[in-house]
């Protein structure tokens, strides 16, 4: 990157380090931080949406919808994440390709499964094998978002379901007494009040989600832990201009600091959010705020 980096073996100290830390490989490492942050930024709201839908379905008055919501939360919560990521994503990908195969190649007569192989016609491939690598990576990224959202959505659904049930019954009865319909009670009374009960659980989920991002590598997305392992591994002078021993401990130490800092910032934000949501609520937190304001 810098002009003096042409012969790294002649460099020492800080200038060597500055060259070492700006190799193309390290750029991949830095980009992976952005990838992880973007993944979290997209996944969290989508998972919340899945969770909300799941919780709403689980307390629906329509029986099949209720079964669906309950089945979603209990099945997904019961399957280990890693099994989900190894099996479900390949199945999801194959499902998409199979659908496209049905639409695009109706007169294809060979079976889709031949022994161990899964074969669809060329134009049904997702993404097409002719598309550039970044398309494949973006596709993998969105599969990852979807999978994370489904998994964490199930946990969020359970938390929100609990939050909804925790809203005092008296509040809902009062709403009914005022003549509100079910729908009105739900959106105007229940939903605004449930967050304060759900937030501690959702905060926990967010923390777990932050730490679950290394599962990304199972989907072919290169995450920060993959790069830390790759960059920190022993480098032989035959294959690199920057030979070094086993430096994984330093890279992982850096990741440790990153994760700790990130979760600490999250904690602070969640705490503020909690204070904000507690305003005017009939909870101990809200009561404390009310007394504090009077004093």
């Amino acid at each position, binding site marked *: 990157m810098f002009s003096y980096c042409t012969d790294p073996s002649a460099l020492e100290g800080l200038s060597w380090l500055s060259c070492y830390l700006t190799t*193309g490989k390290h750029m991949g490492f830095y980009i992976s931080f952005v990838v992880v942050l973007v993944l979290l930024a997209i996944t969290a709201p989508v998972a919340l949406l899945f969770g909300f839908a799941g919780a709403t379905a689980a307390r629906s008055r329509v029986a099949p919808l209720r079964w669906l919501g309950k089945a979603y939360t209990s099945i997904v919560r019961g399957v280990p994440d890693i099994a989900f990521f190894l099996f479900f994503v390949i199945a999801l990908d194959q499902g998409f390709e199979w659908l496209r195969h049905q639409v695009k190649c109706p007169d294809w007569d060979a079976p889709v499964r031949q022994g161990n192989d899964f074969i669809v016609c060329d134009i049904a491939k997702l993404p097409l094998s002719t598309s550039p690598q970044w398309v494949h990576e973006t596709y993998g990224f969105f599969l990852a978002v979807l999978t994370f959202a489904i998994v964490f959505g199930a946990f969020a659904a359970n938390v929100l379901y609990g939050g909804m049930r925790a809203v005092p019954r008296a509040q809902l009865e009062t709403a009914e007494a005022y003549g509100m319909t079910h729908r009105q009670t739900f959106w105007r009374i229940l939903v605004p009040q449930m967050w304060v009960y759900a937030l501690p659980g959702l905060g926990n989920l967010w923390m777990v989600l932050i730490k679950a991002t290394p599962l990304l590598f199972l989907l072919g997305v290169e995450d920060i832990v993959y790069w830390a392992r790759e960059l920190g591994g022993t480098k032989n002078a035959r294959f690199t201009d920057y030979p070094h021993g086993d430096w994984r401990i330093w890279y992982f130490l850096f990741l440790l600091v990153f994760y700790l800092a990130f979760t600490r910032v999250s904690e602070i934000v969640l705490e503020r959010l909690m204070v904000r949501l507690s305003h005017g609520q009939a909870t101990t937190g809200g009561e404390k705020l009310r007394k504090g304001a009077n004093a």
Partner: protein
Amino acid sequence: MKKLFLGTAALALTAGMALADTVRMGTEGAYAPWNFVNDAGEIDGFERELGDELCKRANLTCEWVKNDWDSIIPNLVSGNYDTIIAGMSITAERDEVIDFTQPYTPPDPSAYVALSADVDLAGGVIAAQATTIQAAFVAEQGWTLVEFATPEETVAAVRNGEADAVLADQSFLDTVVGDGLVMLDRKEALGGGVGMGIRESDGELRGKFDAAIQSMKDDGSLNTLIAKWEVSSQW
């Protein structure tokens, strides 16, 4: 979900207009000198150079894909890439699931690396990369085996005393000896040479690569490459 599906479908449609025979080459990128990631962040090594040359001879456009060793076969059979070119030895067990081209390097001995030359293999703990021929061999002997996901970790395990020795391809271990690690004299003849893994239903592609490998064997360029990267003995 539907929106996402349509979105990616549109993306794939617009991106895939150019009609070339693109072959996606799957590799691990963590097994120098066979395949590794260089300073620029690109896949490099013996198999990178070999693969590019094979594609040129077979008139194919090749794209390189990195994949974890653990899931390298499942991802091939489900069609995420079209070949495995990752120092994979041809074994009867793997041959049941996928097909192999003819070998591009002859079978080479596997070697042990330990902290001292007088280590007791049968009584000690032997490290090997998971789902490799070396791991299978250690298990067969009835020795104590510890498996790791990457080659790097198997060597680190010997260094920090978690394992007494590591069993791996000699060409890989050649790059790690020194600095306290020694190679034992004992060698094991495992596997049937290294070839490219291809889906069983992809006979046409296999034929193309077979012909390309043969032509490189015939004109001696394969031996030159093997010598350059010191991966195995010559043909």
